[in-house]
């Protein structure tokens, strides 16, 4: 290996680490801090957001999910405890999508108080137990997802 190649290698490796650290320290990482918006924030969107693909996270409201009978798809509501937004989705929801659980949906806020989603990601909590315990009513300590949304 020539000394020139080595110099390039050193620069590349320093750039890799430097870039990673700069990403942490400077703005870009901040974007990921708002990985998703809450329903309250979405309701406050101005028209500039209407054509933008965004992620919204919240709790799926109990009893709000209605599957279409004629095709694959459904409507449901997402809440953060303060505001609730209706969501429409075409397709099969993920296996862990469930009322009363967290979900992050990707799509567009149409401005007509409807969120059109094309991707649902299920957020599961950090508690794990066999079904027998769950049926017996055991509750393990876990972070309150709804509370963490409103800060």
């Amino acid at each position, binding site marked *: 290996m020539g000394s020139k190649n080595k110099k390039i290698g*050193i620069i590349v490796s320093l750039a890799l*680490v430097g870039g990673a650290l700069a990403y942490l320290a400077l703005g870009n990482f901040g974007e990921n801090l708002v*990985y998703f918006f809450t329903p309250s924030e979405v309701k406050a969107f101005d028209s500039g957001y209407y054509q933008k693909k965004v992620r919204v996270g919240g709790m799926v409201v109990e009893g709000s999910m209605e599957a279409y009978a004629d095709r694959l798809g459904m409507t449901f509501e997402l809440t953060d405890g303060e505001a609730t937004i209706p969501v429409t989705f075409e397709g099969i929801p993920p296996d862990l999508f469930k009322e009363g659980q967290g979900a992050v949906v990707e799509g567009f806020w149409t401005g007509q108080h409807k969120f059109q989603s094309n991707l649902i990601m299920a957020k599961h909590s*950090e508690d*794990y137990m*066999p*079904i027998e315990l769950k049926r017996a009513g*055991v509750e393990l300590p876990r972070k309150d997802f709804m509370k963490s949304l409103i800060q």
Partner: protein
Amino acid sequence: MIIHRVIRKVQRFQGWFGGGAALCIIAGLYIGLIGSPPDYYQGEVVRIMYVHVPLAHTSLFAYIVLSIGSMWYLWKRDPIVDNMCHAVAAIGAIFTTLALATGMIWGKPTWNTWWTWDARLTSYTIMLMILIGYLMLRTFIDDSEKEARYAAVLAILGLVDLPIIHFSVEWWRTLHQPQSISMRGVSISSGILIPLMCMSIGMSLLFSYMLMVRTQLLYLDRLLHAKKGRLMSQFHMSKTDP
């Protein structure tokens, strides 16, 4: 020096680490794959946790060892500590990559996505970048003393990422679930906790064993090169000096 005495003492038990790792992992695999119940919400997929979580937490432990070793090296300039740092960086990079890979496989059936740029996944990927940068830097610098010094500084700088990885799921909105074992308590029931602990202990022992083997490898390599170099120069001297 004290560190040499410690290394010699620990090295004597190297086989115990390897054997212990094998036992714990085999037991963990058996309990995890066959002897433990499925989760109420995720079903069988929860078994991926028994390999993903131990890999992930061992990789963080590896980075802690790397940064402590780097500080020690800058302070004492002991080449065997530098060999240890070099070794732990490579092992840490492998554990990090595998934790990412198994995490992706867990994410698809649970979250419904292989990858997403949330704070936990992003900060963890940054750790992998830092480790790769560290290893690359070491291969490209000729002077071994300089190589060790620069690499150590780099590793210590990268330490800022560690608390960010750990607390990302508590501080920010993420898709990744929060810590299961935290100030809130333990949110895993015993049937699922036992295989997880088995695999975690096994992975930590395996990591320690791998670290010993790799440090030895780098040390022997350095020794062989140094001796060969010295012999070569002696040979050269005897030829030119009649």
